């Protein structure tokens, strides 16, 4: 019997042997390596064997990178809040509507996921640059008298990312709101609750896991996004992703690049951990 059990134990590993090895070699091992490199010293663009904590000290003391770190989280939080606020009415509508266009409307809300972030951000360049649509419209309306520099800026990065990641929040919230029985709301109102009270005391608490999930998902994708900050931001509005790219490809200090990447890993895992503790459900694609 014990022999049968051990065979039973080994069989799944035999079945999954190839993909497990693949993931170990091309995902597990490289990330383990990254972690170790973040504790090694780079000198004259060459990695040395010397163990050090300097890379992390550098990141948290050098003003440029400390600012990049703080800006990254500011952008993440802003994008998370903006996306949840924008996604909530849309998701609620899509879950509750009887419109015969419902299928099309859902497809329309999720279709942006088919386009690369690079492509979606380009539209924002056209809108936000100095001679762009936003300036034209405001001049025409008489709101401003001179063209404004709307980008590069942190605000432009936030708008671009909120736009890119909105479908994720919609998807997550639709999952949460779809699980709320509409008769609960009817019951609350038939017992005399106002629409507002019903929303605050019935819908919101039940939707909370979805709200937290949508927030965390947008937040976590936003802090590691490269394209949008690179296009809508500039040297003065660096975030971690653009700084990592700089260290890896231009400054060629892989140790500091690795340390920054580790900070991103820890932040992401922490976010997902918090989300799980809050009972949040995230839908990722």
């Amino acid at each position: 019997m014990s022999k049968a059990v051990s065979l039973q134990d080994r069989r799944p590993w035999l079945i999954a042997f190839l993909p497990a090895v693949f993931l170990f070699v091309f995902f597990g091992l490289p990330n383990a390596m990254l972690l170790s490199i973040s504790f090694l010293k780079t000198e004259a663009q060459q990695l040395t064997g010397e163990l050090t904590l300097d890379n992390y000290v550098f990141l948290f003391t050098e003003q440029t990178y400390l600012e990049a770190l703080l800006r990254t989280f500011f952008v993440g939080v802003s994008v998370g809040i903006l996306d949840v606020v924008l996604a909530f009415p849309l998701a609620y509508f899509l879950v509750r509507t009887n419109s015969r266009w419902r299928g099309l409307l859902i497809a329309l809300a999720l279709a942006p996921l088919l386009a690369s972030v690079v492509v979606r951000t380009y539209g924002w360049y056209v809108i936000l640059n100095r001679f762009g649509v936003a300036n034209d419209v405001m001049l025409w309306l008489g709101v401003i008298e001179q063209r404004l520099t709307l980008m590069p800026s942190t605000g432009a990065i936030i708008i671009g990312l909120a736009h890119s990641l909105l479908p994720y929040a919609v998807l997550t919230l639709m999952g949460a709101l779809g699980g709320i029985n509409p008769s609960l709301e009817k019951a609350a109102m038939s017992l005399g609750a106002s629409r507002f009270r019903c929303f605050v005391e019935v819908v919101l608490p039940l939707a909370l896991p979805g709200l937290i999930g949508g927030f965390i998902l947008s937040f976590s994708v936003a802090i590691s996004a490269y394209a949008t900050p690179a296009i809508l931001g500039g040297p003065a509005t660096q975030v971690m992703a653009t700084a990592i790219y700089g260290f890896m490809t231009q400054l060629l200090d892989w140790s500091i690049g690795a340390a920054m990447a580790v900070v991103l890993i820890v932040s992401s895992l922490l976010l997902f951990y918090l989300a799980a503790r809050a009972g949040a459900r995230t839908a990722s694609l």
Partner: protein
Amino acid sequence: MSFLRVSPWSALKIAVGAVYAFMLTPILITAVVSLNATNRSLFPPQGLSLRWWGEAFSPEWVDPLIFSLKLSAVSAVLSPLMALPLTFALVRYTFPGRQALMALTLGPLLLPALVTGVALLQFFDFMGWRAWIGFPALVAGHVAICLPFAVRTIAISLTTLPPNLELAAASLGASKLRTLMEITLPYIKNGIVAGGVFAFIHSFTDINLSLFLVRPGEQPITVKIMGFLEYGFAPTLAAVSVITLVLPLILVLIVERLTGLGNFIYGGRGNG
């Protein structure tokens, strides 16, 4: 509220309209900008012209586009293929090390793709595999980050498969292999195809991982666009953007059609 004569539902509809406008305006503006006659990304366009569309079909842009399509196609085939045994092991068995295997499988979903890109660049460098940077390294990275999506879709179909189906086949004398080939695989086919489609889209739209693993002549269209943006914006980019937006859309529509059709054929045979 009543003095405004706007019911809450109408107010919601207005809000929803505004959110749709926010979502779709930049994409529509991009499409319109591509018709500019001048060499600046102006909106509304100054004069109408298709010259930028002509340029979008020059080798400078078509080559990375084809490279992207190749890369995504390979990811779309390899990811479900690898995910299949992995999902079977994870869904069907409890075994020592299952948690570790699960973490390894879902890891690429939890860690930012950007980090995996950095890690792979360093890994290939230190292993002395620098020659692999380019298409081979990109395939390895893309399959790693696309795998979790395929595992998810296949796991969904596998857990909805009624266990009685496989038991019935076995009790009727079908071998394990025959049960797998004629009952299990056809049943979870849609999960496999969906995994492939997700992998294709995820791979085709990726920039964060690809950034670090490209070499001259071997770069996906997203990286090519990114590089071009550093030197300025031109309406060509808008045209290229529209092309890269439409291609996955067409693919999704075709596969939707085909798998629907495939279901129908399979259903017919099952009845006979």
